[in-house]
């Protein structure tokens, strides 16, 4: 008998956000169509556009097992896969998405690589190769490597160097980092060419990049618009909208969609229409959302007037590359590498200013609090996702120490949805409102702008 807890969706505040769900469905169905038609499919980690853009230019369809894990969890269908992975010896402390995928793959293998009938959302087809990523955490290459137990499918690990803040500013280091990434991307292209038996279509890649940067530019502008008070869009909108810019910014449909998003948000800003009608508090959220229970944010908004003006650094597009820097780059691989590297390092100056590390998952929030006039951080530690949790306590310390911005901590998990206790989160939020009031006063006394 299934647990009573149903998926609690958010109504969202933007019309475009409500439509964005189609993009998510598109990812899974295209992958299956491609597999059915005998076209190559790759399972990829979110790689901040480093390798997937290139794979797409070679005509590959991408499947995202991390995304599939979230999907299975939301459908309450992850548990059998988790058990199946653990039953083969994978520790239960590993990434929930990894266990979901490993269990799924084990089942797939036992079914002779025919997608089982009961696979949630129609399942993921057997890939031609696995595209792992060296950024964010170890699971994201070790997990793909461990799939070799069930399928003889090559793994390509994208080298994505992680520079320390101080090291970022050392002369020549940025150039060395990007050179390294470019060399690896060239090797990746060779790998793909050999695997697919055809040459890279560089024109196709250029065209994709053109669309890609345009889409991202719009997404960035939308982020800037959200600085307005009241906030024209909130976290629940973003988490829907992000699908096209994160997974398929090179798709003309994504570009067209984003133009509409921009228009909608601009309209709201111009007319001072807030996403939350009675916006009283502005919060930020870190890091990965409780996908299954996003409706709870609608409740916070209604009950307390809380608007989440910014969230989830890792899903956002970076600022556009400075034009003069971009102009000098003629090699598309160098352009991609530079941009992806930029995503991880653009807040290094903020980190340096505050004499802290790291950039990733942490420094950006030190800028968000100011730019978005933030009253509090909603920290969401996840039991089975370490990269999204490692720096939350540290971030909490920093926000309090440097900006007198308090945090509320509400635990959850990416696959064990029972960990997130809704009632408890409401109790915590209610108490936290007072805390935010208190620190507003303190900030006022200490001369902060907000």
């Amino acid at each position, binding site marked *: *008998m*299934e*647990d*009573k*807890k149903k998926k609690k969706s958010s109504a969202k505040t933007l019309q475009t956000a409500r439509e964005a769900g189609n993009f998510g469905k598109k990812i899974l169905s295209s992958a299956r169509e491609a597999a059915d038609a005998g076209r190559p499919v790759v399972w990829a980690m979110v790689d901040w556009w480093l390798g997937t853009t290139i794979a797409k230019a070679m005509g590959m369809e991408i499947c995202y097992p991390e995304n599939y894990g979230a999907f299975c969890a939301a459908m309450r269908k992850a548990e059998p896969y988790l*058990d199946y992975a*653990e*039953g*083969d*010896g994978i520790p239960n402390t590993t990434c929930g998405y990894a266990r979901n995928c490993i269990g799924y793959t084990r089942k797939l293998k036992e079914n002779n690589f025919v997608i089982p009938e009961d696979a949630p959302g129609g399942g993921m087809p057997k890939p031609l190769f696995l595209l792992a990523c060296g950024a964010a955490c170890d699971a994201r290459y070790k997990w793909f490597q461990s799939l070799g137990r069930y399928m003889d499918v090559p793994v390509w690990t994208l080298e994505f160097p992680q520079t320390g803040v101080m090291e970022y500013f050392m002369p020549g280091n940025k150039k060395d980092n990007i050179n390294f990434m470019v060399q690896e991307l060239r090797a990746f292209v060779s790998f793909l060419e050999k695997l697919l038996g055809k040459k890279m279509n560089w024109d196709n890649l250029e065209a994709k990049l053109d669309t890609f940067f345009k889409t991202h530019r719009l997404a960035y502008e939308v982020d800037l618009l959200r600085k307005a008070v009241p906030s024209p869009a909130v976290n629940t909108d973003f988490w829907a909208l992000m699908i096209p810019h994160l997974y398929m910014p090179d798709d003309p449909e994504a570009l067209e969609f984003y133009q509409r998003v921009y228009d909608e948000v601009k309209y709201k800003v111009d007319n001072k229409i807030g996403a939350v009608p009675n916006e009283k508090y502005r919060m930020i959220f870190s890091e990965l959302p409780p996908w299954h229970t996003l409706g709870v944010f609608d409740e916070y908004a209604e009950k307390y007037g809380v608007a989440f003006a910014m969230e989830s650094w890792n899903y956002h597009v970076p600022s556009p590359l400075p034009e003069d820097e971009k102009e000098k780059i003629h090699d598309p691989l160098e352009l991609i590498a530079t941009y992806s590297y930029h995503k991880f390092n653009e807040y290094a100056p903020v980190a340096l200013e505050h004499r802290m590390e790291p950039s990733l998952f942490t420094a950006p929030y030190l800028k968000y609090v100011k730019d978005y006039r933030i009253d509090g951080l909603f920290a969401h530690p996840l039991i089975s996702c370490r990269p999204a949790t490692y720096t939350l306590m540290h971030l909490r310390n920093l926000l309090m120490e440097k900006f007198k911005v308090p945090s509320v901590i509400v635990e959850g998990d990416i696959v064990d949805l*029972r960990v997130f206790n809704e009632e408890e989160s409401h109790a915590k939020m209610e108490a936290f409102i007072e805390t935010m009031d208190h620190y507003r006063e303190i900030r006022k006394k200490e001369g902060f702008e907000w």
Partner: protein
Amino acid sequence: MLFAGIDIGSTITKVVIRDERSIILYTIRPTGAEHRRLAHEVMKESLEKAGLDFEQIDFIVATGYGRINVPFADAQVSEITCHMRGVSWLFPNVRTVIDIGGQDSKGIKVVDGKVRNFIMNDKCAAGTGRFLEIIADTLGLKLEEIGDISLRSREPAGISKTCAIFAEQEVLLRLSEGASVPDILAGLHKALADRIFAMVSKIRIERDVVITGGGAKNAGLRKWLEERIGFPAVMPPEPLITGALGASILAQEMAAKSVEGDLALKKRARTMEAATFFDDDQ
């Protein structure tokens, strides 16, 4: 020759006295908080029942949680090995032993009469008999009866919380929602069976499967576990003594390996007393 095995579990202490061929008697007593002082009491009681003197026992092997604190034992062997030996003696075709104790649970893979692999859960109460004890308590029922009551259920309630403490809360919630006690119990037994199954799957469950420990006496748990396994399992007539039995068998083997003179020397030096870890005055 006579041999004894003593299994000091965290909740129950068991003694088996055997000769070369068969079990003479066995004793089962709750361990209580002071297991160090109890081992020799249970031993004494068993000897009295059998009408034997301590000196007549040729070799004693201790096992279980408290095995290190049995000064009168000639050797101590892990409960994994002892359970395996005890079960193999009773069921020569066993491949998988599932032991469900009060405070821990184990899976043991047996190949050619030896431990090939094993897995233990001694950290999380939700995968042990303790889970049922907590629930029985909450419902005001006796541990011995809940298994049978659960069998009366036609539709097990879904119990979602993995933690024993939270399951307690959920039980109360279900009761207030009008769920029947048999249905709730069935749901809990099923949840426990699922967890045990998940653990033992890691060593690959193969026939013949033997279930031992206090949990084996619970008909509801047996039913749900067998359902998960997919085929029937067997249970020894007295599922609590397999560890002590195995210890007594090992005692026999070790005695056979010892040189005659050494054995006699050992026996004379050994006295039946409690471990003196702590001052009695404290």
